[in-house]
């Protein structure tokens, strides 16, 4: 029942990279501008979903051999354990902090622990969305 997807596949090959880049940008921009872990994660997963739509599941899995269940679990664990990290410094669970550093190339940069937490959220979202979509689409 597969139709001829040449146009979709060709466009996807380019578009996926644009979306992925945009997703990473959104993830990093979140601190000061619109974006963040949740949106970043959703955008990244929409790129994956586009891949799965344009190509079949086997091809994509061969190209990106990731177990998305593990990705999701890793994300959730990162979110929880970065929260626990605060306990080691005698702060409340999930406390975040930030500081300014002078880095080469970037100059004065703000580094915040919330990035670690957000990366957990992003991974969790990507893992769950792709897991759900793959498992439903495989169940024919």
């Amino acid at each position: 029942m597969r139709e001829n997807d040449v146009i979709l596949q060709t466009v996807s090959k380019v578009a996926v990279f644009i979306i992925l880049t945009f997703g990473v940008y959104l993830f990093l921009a979140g601190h000061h501008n619109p974006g963040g872990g949740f949106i970043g994660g959703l955008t990244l997963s929409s790129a994956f979903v586009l891949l799965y739509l344009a190509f079949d599941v086997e091809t994509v899995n061969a190209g990106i051999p990731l177990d998305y269940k593990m990705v999701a679990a890793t994300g959730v664990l990162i979110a929880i354990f970065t929260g626990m990290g605060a306990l080691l410094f005698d702060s409340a669970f999930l406390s975040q902090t930030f500081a300014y550093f002078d880095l080469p190339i970037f100059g004065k940069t703000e580094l915040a622990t919330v990035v670690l937490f957000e990366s957990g959220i992003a991974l969790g979202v990507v893992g769950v969305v792709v897991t759900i979509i793959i498992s439903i689409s495989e169940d024919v």
Partner: protein
Amino acid sequence: MTSIHILLLIPILAAFLIPVIGRQFPKLHLGWAALPIPIVLFSFFVSKVSSISAGETFTGSVAWIRALDLYFSVYLDGLSLIFTLLITGIGSLVVLYSIFYLSKERESLSHFYAYLLLFMGAMLGVVLSDNLMVLYLFWELTSISSFLLIAFWFRRKKSRYGAQKSFLITVGGGISMLVGFIMLQVMTGTNSVQEIIAMRDSIQEHELFVPALVLILLGAFTKSAQFPFHIWLPDAMEAPTPVSAYLHSATMVKAGLFLVARFTPVFGGEATWFWLVSGVGIFTMFWGSFSAVRQKDLKALLAYSTISQLGLIMSLFGLGSAALQGGASAESVIYTKAIFAALFHLVNHSTFKGALFMVVGIVDHEVGTRDIRKLGGLISLMPITFTLTVISSFSMAGLPPFNGFLSKEMFFTAVLNANEMTIFSMDTWGLLFPIIAWIGSIFTFTYSMIVVFRTFLGPYRREKLEKDPHEAPVGMLISPIILCMLVILLFFVPNRLSDYLLSPAMNSILPAYQNMDGLIPKISPWHGFNLELFMTAGVVLLGAFLLRTYRYWNVVYDFFPEKRSIDRGYQWMLARGESGSKRATDRYMTGFLTNYLYYIYGFLLLVVGGTLWLTGSIVIDTSNDAPVSVYEGIIIVIMATAAISILFTKSRMTATLLNGVLGYSIAIFFVLFRAPDLALTQLVVETVTTVLFLLCFYHLPEWSKEERSLKVRFPKMVVSIGTGALTVLLALSVQGNKMFESISSYFEDSYKLAGGRNIVNSILGDFRAFDTMLEVVVLFIAGVGVYTLIKLKEPKGGDDIERE
């Protein structure tokens, strides 16, 4: 973080490491890997003995969730020190014993030691926590690890039954205890046990005082197997013997006693407390010993004997609490002797009962049966085991020169003192205590003798035994030998124990009596020909008589048929609970999606709509609203058209796309109202859900013609229009009711507070990170749910072992 915190977490962390070690070193018996942990902990707590006995206490607190008054705070005083020493000391001996008891080839040792260490950490947590909620957490963790350990041989039906029973009863009690804790927190405004003790006088008149007392006692009674909750303990004997020796005689079942001791300064002196603790305790003491005599299985006998001994200690704590009635005074100091006896017997019981369980384990291991009808004449084959049994059971029976004699005498003194009490209407009922105590002790003597005589004396019948009996390996004997040496040693130097351990504990249970004259009695093995001694003599004579004439009087037990009524009641409740909930569930779980939607939206309409209506919150105030612009009007028209068109579409595909129109229009709204984060999220979510819908619809059949009769459609219309109207009303009412100042000004400082200029994201990642974390967890659970529903369909006629 103090060193106590770290030590407390070591066993729990080690529990996770044990399976890894097991995989790395497959040749190692994992017991050797686990053994250093209790030994290290034990030596740490021993090193604290001298400073604790000098009156010091150790505290430490780590903030967990400040907003909930949740602090991981530890408190090491005399009372907790006794328990930590028991937990780690007996823990070391039990681990050593188990190395020889459990075979490396046949048993899943990584599970066993992981659970055992988990229990050890949890139990240490119970006795060291100062925060009520943390204490509760560890309390339930002990129930969980006990469950896992009882079900260690989970292929046996009886193990699973015993594990479930103990879990249901102890966790049920634990939940009632939690409610009691919450009441205490409501009364005092703090979760710290020490602060609650300090506030004792101000809460005594509170209306929640007695309910909290009863609920907390329920937790203690279920855990410490007090009548009528004792029924779980005999079934828990399905656990491997080291577990029975450790959890179900020396430590976990004493958690209830610990709780009672810990809360004596809060509730002691209250009549309800006095009567419940001492009454339930003394009756349990009698009932346990009476039931123990009839047992045929050595371990079941020991289980009932443990129940009885726990009741004994419990009743002593109850009697001693009378000392707090009307404040501390020189006249009532005599009642504190009961608490001293309780602590002393608690230590003694752990030594002799731990040894007895290990001995019975040896018999079971080397002979192959624990049935006293088959055993007999093992004295010449297992001389060392026999000696150990004699020492520990004579101590249990209360004979000199063993430690049980001393504490038994003190028990008699305490009940005789209770007889002379004039408070709590004890002048009428007081005489019951010495009588029941005395009768219970006679049965105690009888069953203690049964353990010795039926097992080791009498005729030796090889044909009834499963293997050739022989003396146990040295490794298995070390632990009971150490315990038996303690049994004898404590008889000769009881006052050393009293100085170093019991008196600091007395000071922490009875802070009002701190260092008062006569609080710490001098223990001496001989105090002349007094009534206590004559009572003991009577116990020995009558006990021996009962043992000889057991054949003639055991008809008494026919009045309490083997189908023990409480046990039957428990099974009946369980069966009724199952069938009742099945019937109720079957009634509403029809399998039709339409019905479920009715429940969900009907409930929403009823509860939310009802609340709105009853509280008169439907206030529509449009005076502050901004004018509607042209663009907004256009989008609204588009959305309304799309929404109405959905009703008339013929295919699922069209409906999904129209639904998408709705979603994207909302995104445009967010853009118009300058919420770029929301707009972005909405756009991506809409895309992903549309794809998801299309994928799902691929699997669904064609959109069938629905039944068009008004009778079917009318209720649907009511519910859907009602839900829609309710949502609109709710949104408008939220605008109309300003109950309090908006908190948004706080978030405007996000750059200063969280270092981020994006307020939305600072809220998500910092201010309200807890919400975000739980959301991602929920999302994950949903994902796993979808995956398991689709992928893990049970093959027909699969492995059914768990449902049996």
